[in-house]
């Protein structure tokens, strides 16, 4: 794509300016992560006197028995990855059958799923608790305060948006591919997993990233399903132990933000390249 050189330079400059503007609040976070709490409110923009404090704060957070960062990190990783894997598998296969089956029931179910995206969390959050508790009373299956419960909850809450996204993209995949596979003797599940699933790579990546961020950062659902101060804690729950009293311990909050962000940034940088590769491959086809 040929473009005037000056035009490109201008755009590059604009991009840099916007980039800095977007990341400016993070700069503030970074700068204040090394200051004492009252210093922060009195002198928000000044550079800290000892940058080494960040390391000290990171150490405090990592070793704090309050936060149990190490185990919270592992819990977050476990919950997020399992939820993501299930969400992608189950949502994509569901979206495929919904797209390919052109019946009223099929569209009805799809609309139902999409409508669920509109439900405000407040309506369901407490009833969810009482319901899970009833299940435990009647069947003995412990959904509250367990990995199973929170993962099922994430699948339930995330599937609407995921199916929504897969649905849109699957519609644009030509039917000939599947018909060819059927002629070749593929069973339906083979058709999906061997032919369709790989084509969905770009959307897989997008859905993974979008769901991943939401689940990794989510506070309210773990607060209710896992509870505060119990055996299993996710990072947001753990970090909330720092937003203490009325005194916001900015130094620790800022450091905790940094520590929570890094895994996600890494994930995104990886997935992003993959998304682009997938996009390019998709458009050439």
């Amino acid at each position: 794509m040929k473009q005037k050189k000056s035009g490109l330079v201008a755009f590059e400059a604009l991009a840099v300016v916007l980039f800095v503007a977007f990341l400016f609040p993070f700069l503030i976070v970074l700068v204040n992560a090394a200051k004492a709490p009252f210093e922060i409110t009195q002198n928000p923009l000044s550079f800290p006197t000892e940058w080494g404090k960040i390391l000290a704060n990171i150490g405090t957070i990592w070793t704090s028995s309050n936060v149990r960062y190490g185990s919270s990190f592992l819990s977050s990783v476990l919950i997020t990855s399992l939820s993501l894997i299930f969400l992608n598998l189950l949502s994509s296969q569901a979206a495929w059958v919904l797209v390919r089956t052109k019946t009223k029931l099929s569209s009805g179910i799809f609309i139902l799923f999409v409508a669920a995206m509109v439900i405000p969390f407040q309506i369901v959050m407490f009833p969810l608790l009482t319901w899970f508790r009833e299940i435990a009373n009647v069947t003995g299956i412990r959904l509250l305060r367990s990995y199973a419960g929170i993962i099922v909850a994430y699948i339930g809450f995330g599937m609407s948006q995921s199916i929504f996204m897969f649905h849109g993209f699957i519609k644009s995949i030509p039917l000939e591919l599947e018909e060819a596979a059927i002629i070749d003797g593929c069973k339906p599940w083979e058709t999906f997993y061997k032919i369709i699933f790989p084509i969905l790579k770009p959307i897989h990546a997008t859905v993974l990233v979008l769901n991943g961020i939401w689940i990794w950062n989510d506070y309210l659902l773990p607060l209710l399903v896992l509870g505060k101060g119990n055996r299993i804690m996710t990072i947001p729950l753990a970090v909330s132990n720092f937003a203490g009293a009325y005194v916001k311990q900015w130094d620790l909050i800022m450091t905790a933000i940094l520590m929570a962000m890094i895994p996600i940034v890494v994930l995104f940088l990886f997935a992003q390249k993959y998304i682009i590769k997938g996009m390019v491959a998709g458009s050439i086809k």
Partner: protein
Amino acid sequence: MKKAKHPAIFWIFLLPVLFAFSLVIVVPFLLGVWYSFTNWSATARLGETLRFIGLENYAKILKDPSFAYSFLLTVVYTIFNMVAINVASFSLAMLVTRSLKGKNVYRAGFFVPNLIGGLILGYVWQFVFNNAVPSIGTALGLASWAQAENLVLGKSVSALIALVIVSTWQYAGYIMVIYVAAIENIPQELIEAAQIDGASPLRRLFAITLPMTRQAFTITLFLTLVNSFKQFDVNVSLTAGGPATMFAGQPILGTQLLALNIYNQGFRSNDMAGGQARAVVFFLVLTLVSIIQVSINKKREIEL
């Protein structure tokens, strides 16, 4: 799939999500709606049993001016937010789909705000508006920036604008990802043909780029509509619903969006059933608006 109307594979593939859906969404939702017709408190009040009270909770909503205000405010906020986010993210998407050197870095940068949870984000921005902005003003010699009367979060109108700014900052990157996917899906040949024909960039935008990304717009408008309407985290942490303003002769919280109104009713006023009723109303309205939005968009898509 020309065999049975609903082949086995249909149900096998759907069953897991249907199960999770019923378990986590359907049952709690129905329970929640049921609670809105009772005197449910979620606490242990003496001598009170759970009983059906009909539409009493709903009638109370009509008597509360703050709900009407929150409703109107949320509509206004949603409109501004949708415009701001979509204009910003589309522009960003256009920018990063050019052959810029730092393309991937910029994309990541614009996306990064979405990586922080809403609560913390709101506190960071509260700090920016209350402390950093005045400091910058003083440093630049603009004394008015540091004056208390000019603090952004000190007045309802500017606080609402601040809310829009913060949520745009948070979501633009997320929505940008969707637009980027759509833009990069536009066949190169079309664009090159238009360039050869001598079409100006603006003409290309309107004749090719926008129409070819219509489907993305349906999705993004739906997402931004629903997310704006449901805004809670940033509302709580940035403004806590304040500052106060007068409405219908009563001082009420000036930047309290619907979700916060519902939350406060349930948890601050200890009226859980009342909160549920408001949530049900909220859901009905949002469903209606979404249906309207999506059908309008779908019609436009088909016109393509």
